């Protein structure tokens, strides 16, 4: 068989549930050995994609290959190559953590010894050794989640699917998950990771596909995605909420566009072309007018802003008060210094 550079290829996937169209022609290519983020708001179709690619759901239309095997016709071969951690923990609550992992290891055909060895490795890796012999019922939400992630990684699979893997985890556990993912990637695993945490996609993923209404609306490196909406921004945080209108006027004059305003947080930001000149001007004017500044600086756009730009909505909240921001008229390309994101 010809080795394909892609661990996942999906073409024109469609899936409807009754009237609702969950996927409306979903395309994706994920290079082997990379982490691909799938980013989208609630109901965008992320879980549906994962369920189809892991053979749990059949697509109505379109086809897909995972690890070189067709997800419908060669479902069994696909299953021998993948690991899955779904959006909601899928572990046996009555069994202990270790019993869970050894059971899944046996069902993954590692044999009794292989399953036991792998279970202990994973319990250690996810800091569950102390709780190994407690029934999962007594686990906290985060512990359950970690056990579920461990279960998805038993095989050190060729392709790993993680559906919102760190939702509900504390920062330390989140770090453990990221480390485990990186370690698998270092061993050659390809990862498709859905998330609503923009910083997570930014940190882990080589590429990010943004999905909305069952379709990919953008697919690029995190750096390029951020670049696409127009370079750096100046961001001001005020001491006093009452100064927001005045500061807005200053930013409009200095940057030439309406800034985005988060009145609650007293935070304003707008795209800049002449970075330092504009920053200096803004700061001076603010000082002249006696407006107290808590923080000011230049920064690259966040993925949240990318999302807002691509879909007209915020990723993490439903429609905000302001409505979609107009993208800056000119794209100040060439002024950016791209930091390429790489993993391991």
């Amino acid at each position, binding site marked *: 068989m010809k080795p394909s550079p892609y661990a996942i290829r999906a073409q024109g996937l469609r899936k409807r549930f009754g009237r609702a169209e969950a996927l409306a022609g979903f395309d994706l290519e994920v290079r082997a050995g990379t982490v691909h983020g799938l980013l989208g708001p609630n109901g965008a179709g992320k879980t549906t994609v994962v*369920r189809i690619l892991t*053979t*749990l*759901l*059949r697509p109505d239309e379109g086809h897909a290959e995972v690890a070189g095997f067709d997800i419908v016709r060669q479902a*069994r071969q696909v*299953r*021998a190559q993948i690991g*899955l951690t*779904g959006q*909601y*923990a*899928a*572990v*046996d*609550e*009555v*069994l202990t953590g270790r*019993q869970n992992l050894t*059971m*899944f290891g*046996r*069902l*993954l*055909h*590692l*044999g009794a010894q*292989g399953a036991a060895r*792998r279970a202990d490795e994973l319990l250690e890796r996810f800091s569950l050794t102390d709780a190994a012999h407690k*029934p999962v019922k007594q686990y906290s939400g985060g512990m359950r989640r970690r056990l579920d992630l461990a*279960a998805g*990684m*038993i*095989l*050190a699979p060729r392709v790993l699917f993680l559906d919102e893997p760190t939702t509900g985890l504390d920062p330390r556990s989140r770090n453990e998950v990221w*480390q485990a993912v*990186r*370690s*698998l990637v*270092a*061993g*050659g*695993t390809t990862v498709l990771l859905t998330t609503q945490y923009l*910083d997570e996609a*930014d*940190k*882990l993923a080589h590429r990010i596909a943004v999905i909305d209404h069952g379709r990919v609306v953008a697919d690029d490196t995190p750096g390029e995605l951020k670049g696409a909406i127009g370079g750096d921004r100046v*961001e001001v945080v005020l001491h006093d909420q009452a100064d927001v209108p005045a500061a807005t006027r200053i930013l409009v004059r200095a940057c030439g566009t309406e800034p985005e305003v988060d009145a609650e947080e007293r935070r304003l930001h707008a795209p800049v072309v002449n970075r330092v000149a504009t920053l200096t001007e803004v700061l001076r004017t603010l000082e002249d007018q006696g407006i107290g500044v808590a*923080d000011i*600086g*230049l*920064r*690259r756009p*966040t993925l949240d802003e990318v999302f807002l730009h691509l879909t007209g909505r915020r990723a993490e909240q439903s429609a905000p008060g302001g409505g979609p921001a107009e993208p800056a008229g000119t794209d100040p390309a060439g002024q950016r210094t791209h*930091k*390429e*994101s*790489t*993993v*391991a």
Partner: protein
Amino acid sequence: MTAVTNPTPSPLAPTPPVVQLPRSRAYWAVADCLTIVRRDLIHRVREPAGIVWQLAFPIVSVLLYGYVFGSAMTVPGGGDYQEFLMPGMFVMTMAFGFMNTATAVVSDKAKGVTDRFRSMPMAPSAVVTGRGIADIIGACIDLVILGLCALAIGWSPDDGPVAAVAGFALLLLLRFALLWVGVFLGLLIPSVETAGNLYALVFPLTMISNVFVAPSLMPDWLGAIATWNPLSATVTATRDLFGNPVASGGGWADDHATLLAVGWPLLLTAIFLPLAVRRFQRLSR
């Protein structure tokens, strides 16, 4: 300001390859099934509460009806009411047992465990065959416990060991058939909470039968339903095999109780086994 942190390429030990054993498909079909049986039996050991309740009900019934109301209950054709009641309690335990099957299936489905199994390269049949074998083992344990309780209060099978074994075999056959009904309903109902509603189905099924009262003592239409109830066939057949009072109404169904006690379960299996399999396959819809 917010710094853009990129993935730190830390010197990580790559995860060592994990080896899947090369064995034949048939080997894994059996091995996977045993893994599931083991898991289901661990459940039984760790969560005995539900089973204790299910066994308590027939035991309490026997004590209550046998000792308290016993004198008020009559068995047409004569005979001791407690002796009459015991086979009915065995059958009722088998009938309630399918609630366990349904509850376990719906719970696995709702908690995503079924999906995890389905995403694995295990033999898909193992999920169901494992469940089935574990439930039959469970039913055997139930029958042993109940049988010992019955012996303790003076019940005994009077027609010899062969007939007694045949009687228990019929009980297990009924449980086997209800297994598929349980799997099917478990896959059909949406949540664990709804599973409790199945009692509304089982209760009339056990009450409108000859478990407690001979159908000849019921109004005609009710008696007819009770006589043709699949549970009644097994009750009558086992009463016969255990040498307990039968209280036959003399109709065709009563005369051919053993035939029906084999036929009904086979018919139920023939209907619900394919339905359950189809339902399982349709999870990917």
